[in-house]
């Protein structure tokens, strides 16, 4: 029996072969990206990768030089009028006039919509009330970001573009913002955000899109991106001066007969170790047994999965640019 498809909504964003040049230099060169409806899609990439330009093409702020962009199934240029009420935008540079007070700005933006969110509860929940009497000019970076986020969602959009939403925020603000994004998602809002923060992408995103040099170089769920099958690595933390050679020998003894490569145990510093080779349940048992016999407590153990940051750095390179 065929599976029932969910209520058919077009993808929040569908980009194919997008090209955008500034003064002849291609900043986005043949980018393809799909952000499913009702999900959080994180666009991750180094500075200058073309993230903001891509988002701005979706917001109708830039006209693509080639390729197609569809937002909620519509053309951001041709259908701008019908898209504007349905799409919320948080720009990287805020877009807030400097002489205005936060609640004034929110009330003004609310007046552009027929049934906006109520300003006061939204301001309360993002902690804006505490600096309501300060003009934008005197707000900290994190405070401006929270105000800009409130501005993006005041019109109850179906889709929100957030360009580096938690840049410059303290951890408390960041978690408040993340909670809000999760709640928006649970209401069915589609969210497309750009970020440098791996934990932001890993915690929030249903889909992560890694962009470099104007094109997508990897795309998938955090799980898909971080669990490469042949990359079997075991990481554990224990006391830094344990005998790695002795441990590796113990792990080799524990494995079943076969052509598998010998284990290598490497100290990454600060008591973090990686074991490479064939990782099986027997390997874990052998590790635990060896540690027990040496009276060593393992404080953390994970298998087979690289962090998103490992994947990101492997794909985009470790050199500064």
């Amino acid at each position, binding site marked *: 029996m065929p599976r029932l498809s969910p209520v058919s909504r077009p993808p929040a964003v569908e980009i194919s072969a997008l090209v955008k040049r500034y003064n002849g230099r291609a900043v986005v060169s043949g980018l393809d990206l799909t952000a499913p409806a009702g999900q959080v899609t994180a666009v991750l990439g180094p500075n200058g990768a073309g993230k903001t330009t891509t988002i701005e093409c979706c917001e*109708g*702020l830039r006209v693509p030089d080639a390729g197609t962009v569809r937002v909620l199934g519509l053309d951001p240029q041709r259908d701008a009028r019908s898209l504007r009420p349905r799409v919320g935008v948080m720009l990287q*540079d805020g877009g*807030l006039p400097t002489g205005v007070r936060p609640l004034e700005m929110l009330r003004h*933006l609310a*007046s552009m*919509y*027929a049934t906006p969110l109520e300003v006061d509860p939204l301001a309360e929940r993002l902690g804006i009330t505490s600096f309501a009497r300060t003009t934008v000019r005197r707000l900290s970076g994190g405070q401006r970001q929270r105000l800009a986020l409130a501005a993006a969602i005041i019109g109850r959009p179906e889709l929100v573009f957030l360009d580096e939403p938690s840049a410059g925020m303290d951890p408390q603000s960041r978690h408040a913002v993340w909670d809000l994004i999760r709640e928006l998602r649970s209401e069915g809002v589609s969210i497309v955000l750009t970020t440098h923060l791996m934990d932001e992408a890993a915690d929030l995103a249903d889909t992560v899109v890694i962009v470099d040099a104007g094109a997508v170089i990897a795309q998938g769920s955090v799980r898909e991106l971080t669990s490469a099958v042949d990359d079997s690595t075991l990481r554990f933390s224990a006391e830094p001066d344990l005998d790695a050679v002795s441990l590796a020998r113990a792990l080799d003894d524990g494995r079943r007969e076969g052509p598998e490569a010998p284990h290598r145990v490497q100290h990454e510093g600060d008591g973090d170790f990686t074991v490479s080779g064939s990782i099986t349940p027997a390997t874990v048992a052998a590790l635990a047994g060896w540690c027990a016999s040496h009276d060593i407590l393992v404080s953390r153990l994970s298998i087979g999965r690289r962090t998103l940051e490992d994947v990101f750095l492997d794909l985009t390179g470790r050199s500064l640019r």
Partner: protein
Amino acid sequence: MTAAPLPVGSAPAPALRRVLAQAGFETTMILRNGEQLLITLILPVFVLVGLTRSSVIEIGTAGATRIDFFAPGVIALAVMSTSFTSQAIATAFDRRNGVLRLLATTPLGRGGLLAGKVLGVLAVEVVQVVVIGAVALGLGWHPVARGALVALLAILLGTAAFTALALLLAGTLRAEGVLALANLVLVLLAVAGGIVVPASRLPGALAHLALLLPSGALGECLRDTLMHGALPITSVIVLVAWTAALAWGAGRMFRWH
């Protein structure tokens, strides 16, 4: 930070309400900003009182009283300060801070933003005309009543030309550059642009050149209508030509980023 419901359901407010909201927002921003208020209201009143109550500038007034001679030009100066200098600076900084782009993504859109700005400028000009007019009347000004309607049309036309120039600068240059240039141009046109001091009293070639500047044309329009009740055809044509050229230029060259 307590929980608040976030139901989805987006629809725009009616277009008129959006534009009026933007106009009110722009007006408040201008009238609240100290520097802007200095340029748009305090400076013209100061110039008016200074020119009428002292003889710093020796000038033949062709039989008119000094207040009748200078009041129309000071109103023209005030219109120029709001529609050009103040608007150029505000728009340039809003452009740099991303305000124009953010508003363009809301239901207001680019067209609504422009309409809101123009209405905001006109609202500030109403305040200026009322305040400067009241001060002038207090100083003994007797404008020709039958010229008032054409004078208002000239103010609208001058506003269009100067707002287009403001947007042309604000949309093409860096904010700091606009800040310097818009103030410099205001001072140059105020002194030698035929706006407060009529072109005919300016030295040499300026006497002819100033008539062709938007400042000179607006000044002539208001003096012709409010001093003599005359219809300043040539100056109206000059303003129309400037408006068309500057609006075309601003439309083509304005960059949102």
